[in-house]
């Protein structure tokens, strides 16, 4: 058994860890605080920390910008849409690879992973060209499909590792009892697979929400999600720190909350089972 750890040691580690934790978190905290300041207070010298007139005016100001609600809607539709489309396609594939593995299952899994490693710039122009040719440039459906495709390997892999953990004996038992394929999937597999599917959904919504190559380059006005909306702040416009902070907080808050729930899945989802 571990030796008794003195309270003093524990205190030292606590102070150290909290210091580094707060340092890492500080930019987010500072953005949060600034989002409640007036523009003048946001650039006051010396900086004000907590004792300023807290105001919500930045949040209302940003929402009144013509394109914010649209960008938010686009982000939600694109992130959720691409994730669910991906799940729809990945669940059958992962199911069959986990429960009816063939000789080539391993190769297929690795090949799927390799598609994830294709640098986006390598296919940038063809995609722009195809999108224009199909008349879907700057549309949500284009972004849904593209983000679904770049995340599909991760979705398949995550589901595969979850399905692998479901004991095969249960399936055999249900087959003995006369369950057909449909019943097997619906009544045996689904209830056991749901937690895994839920975490996969969560992580992929996060990844799709934050994707910032295709979302910036394939959209202009209509389908631009929050990543592109925020990028439009890169040209400064007078005093804008507080508004930038408010817009940033609104863009990251929902994902921060989801992210905290999916810490564990992050390791599984992004290392493809190479670290356990």
């Amino acid at each position, binding site marked *: 058994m*571990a030796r008794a*750890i003195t309270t003093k040691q*524990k205190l030292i*580690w606590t102070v*150290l*860890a*909290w210091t*580094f*934790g707060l340092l*890492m*978190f500080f*930019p*987010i905290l*500072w*953005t949060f605080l600034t989002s409640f300041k007036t523009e003048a207070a946001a650039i006051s*010298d*010396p*900086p004000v920390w907590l004792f300023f007139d807290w105001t919500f005016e930045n949040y209302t100001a940003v929402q009144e910008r013509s394109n914010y609600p649209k960008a938010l809607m686009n982000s939600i539709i694109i992130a959720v849409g691409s994730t669910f489309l991906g799940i729809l*396609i*990945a669940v059958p*594939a992962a199911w*069959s690879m986990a*429960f*009816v593995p*063939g000789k080539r299952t391993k190769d*297929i899994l*690795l090949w*799927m*992973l*390799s*598609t994830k*490693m*294709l*640098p*986006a*710039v*390598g*296919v940038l*122009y*063809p995609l*722009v060209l*195809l999108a224009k040719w199909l008349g879907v440039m700057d549309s949500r459906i284009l972004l849904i499909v593209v983000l679904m495709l770049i995340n599909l390997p991760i979705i398949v892999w995550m589901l595969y590792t979850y399905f692998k953990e479901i004991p095969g004996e249960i399936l055999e038992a249900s087959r003995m009892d006369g369950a057909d*394929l449909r019943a097997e999937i619906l009544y045996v597999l689904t209830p056991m697979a749901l937690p895994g599917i839920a975490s996969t959904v969560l992580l992929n919504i996060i990844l799709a929400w*934050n994707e*910032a190559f295709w979302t*910036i380059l394939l959209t202009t006005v209509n389908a631009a999600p929050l990543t592109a909306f*925020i*990028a439009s702040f*890169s040209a400064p416009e007078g005093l804008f720190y507080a508004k*930038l902070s408010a817009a*940033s907080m609104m*863009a*990251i808050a929902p*994902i*921060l909350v989801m992210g905290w729930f999916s*810490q564990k899945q*992050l*390791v599984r989802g992004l290392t493809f089972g*190479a*670290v356990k």
Partner: protein
Amino acid sequence: MATMHSRSAARFMITPAVFLLLVWMLVPLCMTLYFSFADYRPLRATFEPWIGFDNYLRFVSSSSFWSSIVTTLWMVGGILSITIVGGVLMALLLDRPMFGQGIVRILVIAPFFVMPTVSALVWKNMFFNVDNGLFSYLYKFFGAQPFDFLSQAPMLSIIVIVSWQWLPFATLILLTAVQSLDSEQLEAAEMDGAPVLSRFRFIILPHLSRAITVVILIQTIFLLSIFAEIFVTTNGAFGTRTLTYLVYQRVLESQNVGLGSAGGIIAVILANIVAIFLMRIVGKNLDN
């Protein structure tokens, strides 16, 4: 076990995913390959389908290519060193007994979930800005001359921004590995009087080596295609033009599709070299 019936059903179920990924990979990649051998400049309405390896020769012999390779290496190398060293230390720290461990972990991981455009803009304006950034106040507070980070040290600035985003990832994965360490082995070494550093060197580091390799490979693949952080901070100026950014500029800004496509193919080849090593590790793990 599996019946013929379920086997064919399985093949049927895997088809959509395989087909979509195959199309997704092959069609655009073949088009890029095709363009890379063509003189294709849409703005000037030039399209000559076959000019041999001219684009490759021009791309590789231009000074911007080599400087972009150097920039990419510095950027990826810098970010990797910071995140790996920082990640190992952070993981060991978070593994210690303390109060509020869960909360500290949440604080450390949070930056990973911030979208790239937000983190780049927040750092650019609220920290690096020479007039109103927090770092300038800090400099002034200590009586020093404020420093214009993004134009004086643009590379370092981008490295800081991206490292801040990826340090949580390295920490989280290394922490997972640290937690699977056999604590009895460590205690035995401690009882035998092994000092902290040699315990780290001979027990902890070898145990982490696999996780470190995985972190390096995965991060490299993502870091090779850093885009948004450069897009909203320097827009590729001041020597921050990576290979990815150079190809983007050739293809979409100057609309020299042939030349840019040749660069794209080169980027694909370079990324594949890294990918092969990662696949080997992942593949080995699939067998156990």
